[in-house]
């Protein structure tokens, strides 16, 4: 049976990748008038990166293993 933690990992991995991508895009092409305060901190880039790495760890650690 697939562990619940693998589903958590997939969720964090995919969401982290999407948020990280959006953050990197904003760093490369900053909007003329940012709609959020503290835009200069680029929270979506580093938080997205953190979620991506956490999700990657969960996916590897709880991946289905072959049994004899």
């Amino acid at each position, binding site marked *: *049976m*697939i562990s*619940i933690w693998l*589903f*958590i990992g*997939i*969720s*964090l991995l*995919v*969401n982290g990748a*999407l*948020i*990280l*991508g*959006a*953050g990197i*895009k*904003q760093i490369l092409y900053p909007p003329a008038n*940012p*709609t*959020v*305060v*503290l*835009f200069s*901190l680029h*929270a*979506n880039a580093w*938080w*997205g990166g953190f*979620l991506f790495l956490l999700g990657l760890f969960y996916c590897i650690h709880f991946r289905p293993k072959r049994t004899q």
Partner: protein
Amino acid sequence: MMPLAAMFVETRLVHMSAIDIAIVAFYFILVLAIGFYLKGQANTGEDFFMAGREMTSWVAGLSFLSANLGALELMGWAGSAYQYGILATHWYWIGAIPAMLFLALVMMPFYYISKTHSVPGYLNLRFGEPSRILSAVCFAFMTVLMSGVNMFAMAKVMQIVLGWDLNFSIWISSLTVAIYVALGGLRSAIFNEVLQFFLIWAGALMIPVLGLYEAGGWTNLKAEIAHRFSTQYVHLWSGLGHFSSNPMGINWVGIVFGLGAVISMGYWTTDFLVVQRILAAKDLRSAEMAPIIGAGFKMLVPLIVILPGLLGLAVLPMHLTGEAQAAATGGHSYNDVLPLMLARYCGPGLLGLGITALIAGFMSGMAGNVSAFTTVWTYDIYRPLINKRATDAHYVSMGRWTTVIGVLISVGTAYLVMQFASIMDYVQALFSFFIAPLFGTVILGMLWRRATNWGGFWGLLCGTISSVGMWTWVKLDPTALRYVALSPDAKGLAQDMYQALWSFLVCVIVTVVVSLMTKPKPAAELNGLVMGLTEVPHVENAAFYQKPIFWAGIVTAVFIALNIIFW
């Protein structure tokens, strides 16, 4: 047919980008995938209704906590923090932690050893059929109505925040929940609750982090709130000496005895919606550890719920008001504070995750209601009253159909509320009528061997009637609140606390009096159900750090320290 574009109105608090919509869509795909994957694991009654009783303490504990971490709770308590200040934290600390630890260490052995499927099932074993039927019918009726009310409230939130059409929100969420719970049963609901737990933390944690950065730290935040509002907004206990010395209009007696000793005990230890998650644990130690793990994380929830409300007091340029005034002036209400803070700090991607967390909280809350309703209907109403001798496969089939029917009744309730808004207040009040007396009945049943079948039944009935009576009295004559809450300065929340306290006392007194007048059950029939007559297995050779009592002690120490720090 309504064109798709017409389903989304232009006035909204936040605007989602394509990446945000992709994150929301991925959530729906993932929960449906989980439901289809778990379909093959829900073939027997134990699998479908009790998740096979094989959950680890972590999964059961996080699910137990998440069942109470719905989107409406998040937004409502963030709004309460804006309205009342840090006092709202009492609902997360004294209004939860002692009850969760009490469930783990005192009550869980009896629930678990009796191998009951539900709380009404325990009442049947301890007090007989009449008590079981009374509590099962009340619970099933209220749960499905509450689910409908929450569905409508969340659709309304989605309309205000995202501009989504009410029908779109109601049908898309209810169909998704119906599919994944009908396929995977309780296991599916639990998996999605754990997923929701992670999404909520991932989606909401940026608000306090960035908010504290903007406010200049906790000390500066307190100073700013004191400057703009009052120092009482940042003190947990020091303003509770009298009803008039704090923004909530309540005193310490109501908080300690009404909230801490009765309402929270009733909710966390006898509301089957949350207790069902613990009953799915794989063994007694896991069942005892699960509420302790839940309590540990519960203490942290104010970070993502209360702190955003307090930050709103300090950093938002506008002043939030009550719903009626906001509707009249076109401004924002207290309940908008969390979406406003989300929009303030969260750019593309983060905003989608925050919105997904709210949707996940709403849907898993509905799934929790539906799965608890399904179990109580099938095991505590259908089986004893309608079809006693059916096969296990028949009951599983009944569970799947009941899931779909329960969702449809909830949808019907949501549309009823849409037509008659006042129904919402009545349904929310209904739930509070029952929970405090039920706690009185269950706790006497577990701790007092002399309590009899008729004592339990009449105590539960009289406690519930007294609660309805007090609520009706104050509804008809609002000045009666001074008698119910014992003060002319008491406000609405004080009524809930004192109403619970009195109905609990009525239940206990009636149970004791009737029990002493009726014939007690033989001790042999109480084995496994009552303290003193039940042998609770202990892990003798386990290290100290593997014992639930050790972790309960750690949680208690942190709980006391937090209350002193924020006194």
